[in-house]
């Protein structure tokens, strides 16, 4: 179908849509439209916006059958307000789904309700990101179920007071879980370090709350696992880092190489050491403080992944990028094309590369010119065209052509292009792939009236998104949406 036909079709479809259900100009009108549609997804989207009396009617649409209640309790898009309305459902299967739903606030009331002694529900509740720290503390004080206590310790909602209760009651039984919790205090970590095996000591060393004294102990620890974590620490002395830089374990040396606190310029031999493992050199190649000679050496490395990382490094000077743009390995040349400092001249050279993946890297480059993108748009390779479609420098006429491409990946590039105009995007409201229509609902270039065209879309998620967009709009502004 050519552009001219699409341009005729759009207003016809909009008129048809308006005839079916006119665009709502108020929250009340939106809720009325949802009620009239008898569509559970529309009802779900507007539920929070509605008055209590209207919510009853909406609930009648949303939760008429067990199947629908189960669906809503599981559906990733179900808003918290609707999940809340399901909280008192007497169906255990619904409760189990609610307890696993990330947006469900029902977990805060499970303990008070009829399910208070249901073991499976309790296990789910204590894992939930919305669990109450107070309830977790109460349970930590009395529970003996191992799985429940493990889950309490792992839950980031559990603060140090909760963890302390478990530590006091159960000694070392849950050290592993406590040390993984970001809220573990430095005292707890110190206790665990002193009694733990090498794995636990290593986990303590990697924790953000480790005390200076514990760190000092770790510096004397011989265990390789501990050394590997130690080498990552930003507060180590240069003396300690220097020692670790000479460690026999490759992972330790690689961790030092990656550590931004390590003064690489004081350790020129670290780069020039030809016995150094490739893992170490790969880590070095990502640093921003290398000298030109260090980079030059790494540009000639036998391991192409070292060269790839140098090619991708924004600190790599142009002269070295030019050299790497002629590398035999596709991955290296592609890394040059993706380097944010890659010049237009170099991009023009890489745009003629034999490998489509390299040319695609050019197409995605924010530095690529409109002329270069127009040249690349003559290609047939989907990866290249996807890059052109998503590039903000691509001329609008070209985007309009790509918006009609047979490949969904190319069309999606246009939708995700922040500079795609409303006129370019409008015909895409007819795109056969539901995800594209869903993305368009959230696109700021389209007017409210454009989005309303999708209110009776065959896909549940699209319809929900349209009603949700309008519900959020009326919640924030209360104003009449702008029309075309």
């Amino acid at each position, binding site marked *: 179908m050519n552009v001219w036909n699409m341009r005729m079709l759009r207003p016809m479809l909009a008129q048809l849509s308006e005839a079916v259900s006119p665009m709502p100009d108020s929250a009340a009108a939106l809720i009325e439209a949802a009620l009239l549609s008898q569509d559970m997804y529309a009802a779900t989207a507007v539920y929070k916006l509605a008055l209590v009396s209207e919510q009853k009617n909406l609930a009648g649409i949303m939760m008429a*059958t*067990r*199947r629908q209640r*189960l669906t809503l309790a*599981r559906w990733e898009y179900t808003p918290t307000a609707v999940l809340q309305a399901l909280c008192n459902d007497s169906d255990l*299967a619904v409760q*189990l*789904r609610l307890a696993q739903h990330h947006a469900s606030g029902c977990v805060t009331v499970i303990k008070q309700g009829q399910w208070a002694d249901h073991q499976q529900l309790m296990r789910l509740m204590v894992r939930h990101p919305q669990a109450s720290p107070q309830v977790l503390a109460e349970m930590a004080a009395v529970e003996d179920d191992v799985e429940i206590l493990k889950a309490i310790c792992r839950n980031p909602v559990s603060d140090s007071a909760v963890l302390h209760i478990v530590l006091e009651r159960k000694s070392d039984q849950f050290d*592993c879980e406590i*040390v*993984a919790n970001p809220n573990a205090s430095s005292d707890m970590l110190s206790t665990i370090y002193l009694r733990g095996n090498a*794995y*636990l000591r*290593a*986990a303590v060393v990697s924790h953000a709350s480790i005390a200076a004294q514990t760190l000092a102990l770790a510096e004397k620890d011989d265990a390789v*696992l501990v050394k590997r974590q130690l080498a990552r620490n930003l507060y180590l002395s240069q003396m300690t880092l220097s020692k670790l830089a000479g460690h026999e374990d490759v992972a330790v040396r690689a961790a030092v190489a990656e550590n931004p606190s390590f003064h690489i310029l004081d350790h020129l031999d670290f780069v020039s050491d030809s016995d150094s493992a490739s893992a170490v050199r790969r880590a070095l190649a990502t640093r921003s403080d290398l000298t030109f000679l260090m980079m030059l050496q790494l540009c000639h490395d036998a391991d192409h992944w070292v060269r790839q990382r140098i090619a991708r490094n924004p600190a790599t000077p142009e002269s070295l990028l030019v050299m790497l743009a002629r590398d035999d390995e596709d991955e290296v040349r592609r890394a040059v094309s993706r380097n944010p400092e890659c010049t237009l001249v170099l991009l023009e050279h890489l745009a003629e590369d034999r490998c489509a993946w390299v040319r695609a890297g050019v197409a995605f480059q924010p530095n690529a010119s409109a002329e270069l993108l127009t040249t690349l748009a003559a290609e047939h390779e989907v990866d290249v065209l996807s890059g052109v479609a998503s590039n903000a420098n691509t001329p609008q006429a070209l985007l309009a052509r790509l918006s009609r491409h047979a490949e*969904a990946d190319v069309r999606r590039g246009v939708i995700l292009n922040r500079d795609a105009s409303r006129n370019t995007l409008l015909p895409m409201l*007819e*795109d*056969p*792939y539901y995800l594209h*229509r869903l993305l368009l609902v959230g696109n700021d270039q389209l007017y409210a009236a454009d989005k309303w065209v999708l209110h009776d*879309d*065959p896909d549940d998620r699209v319809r929900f998104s349209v009603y949700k967009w309008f519900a959020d709009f009326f919640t924030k502004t209360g104003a009449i949406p702008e029309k075309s």
Partner: protein
Amino acid sequence: MKILVAVKQVAALDDDFEIRADEKDVDEDFLIYDLNEWDDFSLEEAMKIKEASEVEVEVVVVSVGPERVDESLRKCLAKGADRAIRVWDDAIEGSDAIAIGKVLAAVVTKEKPDMVFAGVQSSDQAYSSTGVSTAAYLNWPHAAVVADLQYSAGSGKAVIRRELEGGILQEVEISCPAVLTIQLGINKPRYASLRGIKQAAAKPIEAWGLADVGLTAEDVGADRSMSRVRRMYIPAKGRASMIEGTVAEQAAKLIQIIKEYKGE
């Protein structure tokens, strides 16, 4: 020229579900229904033949099932199928793939297509028998697991490639009309256009009973099936266990398990 495509609406399970009180199936409230993935490919293959043909080709989709199956048939209409037929009678309940094959064969006898396509299997029951049993009842040539098809509408022969184990392809010439069970990946199924979906909503779906295809209740159902479901159940949990410990500990244990598995 006519191609008949047998499709099925399959049931997918969520993470949690309940078994029905009669222990013969999953409680329907926990099932999510959709068109069988293999049938997407077989319908697309029929559409490709239709669009490439200089003679007119009618693509007819047929499914055996209750009213909820209409949703999947409309999907097929939205993708370009010309007609849709749904066959159902409560007596069909409990039929196995062989009994369903008998029903489909009766539809074929009535519709007289030049080719019949079906999916290799369904994603829920996975018997891989329906298409082949249909061919058996018709006494037609058949080929299973078709990964490539060279066929012109109205031709008396087709050349197919069958996908075998180890990545081997077997090239076969088959006389037509024939029943072919189509494998995943033979083509790239199209999305239904919005216009197609809206038009399909208004198209009629022919609802046939057993009498419409010359069968009776005595020909179908559990009693006329070669197999019957005794029970469906969730087996007791096996020997799987969680790998515990810190991340480094878990990694070390995982490496140990892999080495043991490899016999190192």
